[in-house]
């Protein structure tokens, strides 16, 4: 009696059950990952704080988007696709032009021994731009256009950072792993050299009444 074998369970319907579950998960799955452009908002000004900051005129590039989605950069009407190159020129000022932003000699410490071009102590010496981009939009500007312009500005800074990273560290800027302290230090250093200096003005109406 005790030696009786346990009857085998019929596994034929296992596939049906699994299929049922599979179809349920297939239907409920959404595979979209959230992507977007991350930006920092300026903090709310304090009550009695002087908001006026004097900036040299040559250091500011005014980007205006009017109510009919026309783009004006530094006083001239411009196509969106030309904005990136204009921004790169503005931030680098390759010929030390009088009308482009001032350059300031600076030293940035990178982790020693990570780059073959930098001196052994890992200090980068060079010029950092003082330029600031001032982005202004109208209340009637469409959001899509606004984001395209933001995108071009961000793209310009990203290109500069990427170029630098490729030249000195033989790597893509985006591939730097922030979990690794050395690579994080590299990233912070590059951010000091090419700052994301995009300021957004307080909202107001420009280009006629609404």
């Amino acid at each position, binding site marked *: 009696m005790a030696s009786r074998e346990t009857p085998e369970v019929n596994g034929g319907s296992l596939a049906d059950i699994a299929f049922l579950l599979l179809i349920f*998960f297939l239907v409920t*799955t959404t595979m979209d990952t959230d*992507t*977007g*452009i*991350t930006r920092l908002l300026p903090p709310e000004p304090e009550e009695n704080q002087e908001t006026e900051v004097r900036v040299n005129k040559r250091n500011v590039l005014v980007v205006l988007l009017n109510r009919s989605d026309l783009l004006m950069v530094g006083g001239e009407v411009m196509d969106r696709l030309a904005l990136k190159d204009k921004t790169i020129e503005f931030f680098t000022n390759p010929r030390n032009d009088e009308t482009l932003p001032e350059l300031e000699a600076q030293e940035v410490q990178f982790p020693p021994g990570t780059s073959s071009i930098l001196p052994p102590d890992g200090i980068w010496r060079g010029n950092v731009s003082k330029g600031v981009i001032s982005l202004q939009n109208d209340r*009637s500007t469409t959001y899509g256009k606004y984001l395209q312009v933001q995108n071009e500005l961000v793209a310009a800074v990203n290109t500069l950072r990427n170029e630098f990273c490729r030249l000195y560290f033989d790597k893509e800027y985006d591939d730097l792993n922030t979990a690794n302290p050395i690579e994080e230090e590299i990233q912070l250093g590059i951010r000091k050299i090419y700052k994301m200096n995009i300021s957004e003005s307080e909202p107001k109406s420009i280009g006629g009444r609404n």
Partner: protein
Amino acid sequence: MSKFRKKSGKGLQKINTSSLPDIVFMLLFFFMVATTMRETEVQVRVKVPEATEVKKLEKKSLVSYIYIGRPVAHVARMYGTEPLIQLNDKLVSEEGIPYESIQDFVLFEREKLPEADKNKMVMSMRVDQDISMGKVDDVKQALRRAKALIINYSAKKEYRNQGRQR
């Protein structure tokens, strides 16, 4: 001649299906792991713009969503067709600039985060591309006032032919 006749005479061979459950289970586990359940119903129509410089949003737990767009049909019957703001899952009915709703929303969402992450909260702005900036500026001002400063303009990846690499 006899070669052919032999084969056709016996009928179809049975396929061994004993490994079918294994295959199906493998697929099942894949989808179970990849699934994220959608918990909010979006009541406004949002078609986010495209951009080339998009990055993936890490750490979903830090993210709260703000939708701005024209309401979908059954909501429009109640609220009209003007653009509306939706905070995670509830529509904002406040008139004018929604300072209070957004303030409450930010406080509520911040309360849910662990202490160390409270200042890392990300506001994901899922805004329809045809909405005018006035509404978006209002929300941004409200967010500044509520001290939620990290925002993410939601956008789809755009693949552009890079003609010239600098």
